[in-house]
């Protein structure tokens, strides 16, 4: 029987309590270490291509040094990981990539794809409503109130106060904001 506290201990909730199991290999850990090692070596090769060994002050000097460190440490990590026995009481679908994580990750990808064509407000509304509904399983009233309420708040802070121009997409946002502005300015005169 595992309590949530036990779970946290090897999940990496903070740098000070890093994830991983001491003395055992988690599912997928070897694959991750192998990917890092290969990627580091590719990067090292790429860094060599920046300027070779042309000069101490070349733009490639520090990148080569750092990617060399990456390659060496990644290989050490890989070797160490491979030597560890694979843990028996964890599975990928339960402890590494539970369905809920995959679903949310896919929703984030969908968000990224839809953001530009659809615009910030519709995309975010869809995302919040869907995510909160799936995760909380509460009534539609609760879901809609919470998600739309917080979306309006976020929009006001970022769009109006901080004038961050999120993609408008299908919403005629600029006209609406100008109208608001006209009303406020006209009213204050």
């Amino acid at each position, binding site marked *: 029987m595992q309590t949530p506290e036990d779970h946290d201990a090897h999940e990496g909730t903070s740098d000070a309590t890093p994830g991983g199991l001491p003395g055992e290999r988690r599912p997928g850990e070897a694959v991750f270490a192998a990917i890092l090692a290969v990627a580091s070596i590719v990067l090292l090769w790429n860094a060599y291509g920046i300027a070779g060994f042309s000069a101490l002050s070349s733009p490639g000097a520090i990148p080569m040094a750092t990617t060399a460190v990456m390659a060496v440490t990644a290989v050490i990590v890989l070797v160490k990981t491979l030597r560890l026995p694979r843990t028996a009481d964890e599975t990928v679908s339960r402890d590494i990539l539970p369905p809920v994580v995959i679903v949310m990750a896919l929703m984030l990808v969908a968000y990224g794809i839809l953001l530009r064509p659809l615009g910030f407000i519709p995309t975010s509304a869809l995302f919040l409503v869907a995510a909160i509904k799936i995760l909380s399983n509460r009534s539609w009233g609760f879901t809609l109130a919470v998600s739309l309420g917080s979306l309006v708040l976020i929009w006001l802070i970022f769009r109006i106060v901080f*004038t*961050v121009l999120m993609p408008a997409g299908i919403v005629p946002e600029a*006209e609406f904001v*100008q109208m608001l502005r006209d*009303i406020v300015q006209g*009213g*204050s*005169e």
Partner: protein
Amino acid sequence: MRNVVLGAVSALVMAAGAAVAQDYPTREIQGIIQWGAGGSTDTVMRSVTPHAEDALGGTVVMQNMTGAVGAIALNYVADADADGYTLLMGAENPMLYKVMGLGDRDYGDFIPINILARGTPILVTRPDAPFSDYAGMMAYIAENPGEVRFGSTGPGGLPSVVTAMMQTVEGELDVTFVPYDGDGPALTALQGGAIDVMPAVLGASIEGIRAGAMVPLAIFDTEASPFLPDTPIAPELNEGYATYLPWGPFFGVFVANGTPEEAVTALTEAYAAAVENQDFLDLMENRGFTVMNISGDEAQDFLSSWQSTTAWLLQDAGLAVNDPEGLGIPRPGE
């Protein structure tokens, strides 16, 4: 209470009336600033635009969009709808993108709304340097090859153009170029003794000179500066400089080619009026910038002549990545 209601109603009526009477601007305008917050482009744009908003009767929301020497912002505005609702607020750098291999667009793809002002390059050194004037510096460089450290800000930046000018006029300079991110950090390094000489904009160094923390060697302009009447101008030191001067970095507001005539006219008038505002003129003078306030064909001519001078200077100094000839940039005077 009645007044508030009346105010709100009349505001609505006014807003509706304004929308009928005028077709531009009907919504807020985005101003994309090519450089980061706190830089000189940022300061200039944020201080001129409120005056332009007054003249225009609209809102310009300014955003900093940095990266790739301003190319990110330039491409963003070029790719946006050419409807006059996206302005590019930039500096001189895009005119060198083609030559320096940083992109295949420049202000040729834009209509200049206003070239606001131009900066004056100046050569400064630190007070404890082994020379205190231009001739002394040239002599010291000749006697101590490789010893003198010049600050630079990457190929295509103002220091690289000024040193290209010096190398063209005076012949090869055997000095060490130490690269910095901008003239601010380089001037700091100059005061700390990490470099010896820095080509900078007058505005950035004027306070340091006034305090005696930097010593001016030469002003790269055709006329002496009212701030530093005693500092020699470059053509006095070597006639060769006269060919290339006046030269300097500039700031401008642009819209993409294809923007409706009406929007271009409205913006041009608004910015022309804004530049004439006394507050802005004072600010420019304090920072040592020469106000230009040009638009239309005059601005186009200025841009192409600036580009040809600078591109060929860099080409002749061996700094250009692409040959200006191949890009269709004529040699100055041709």
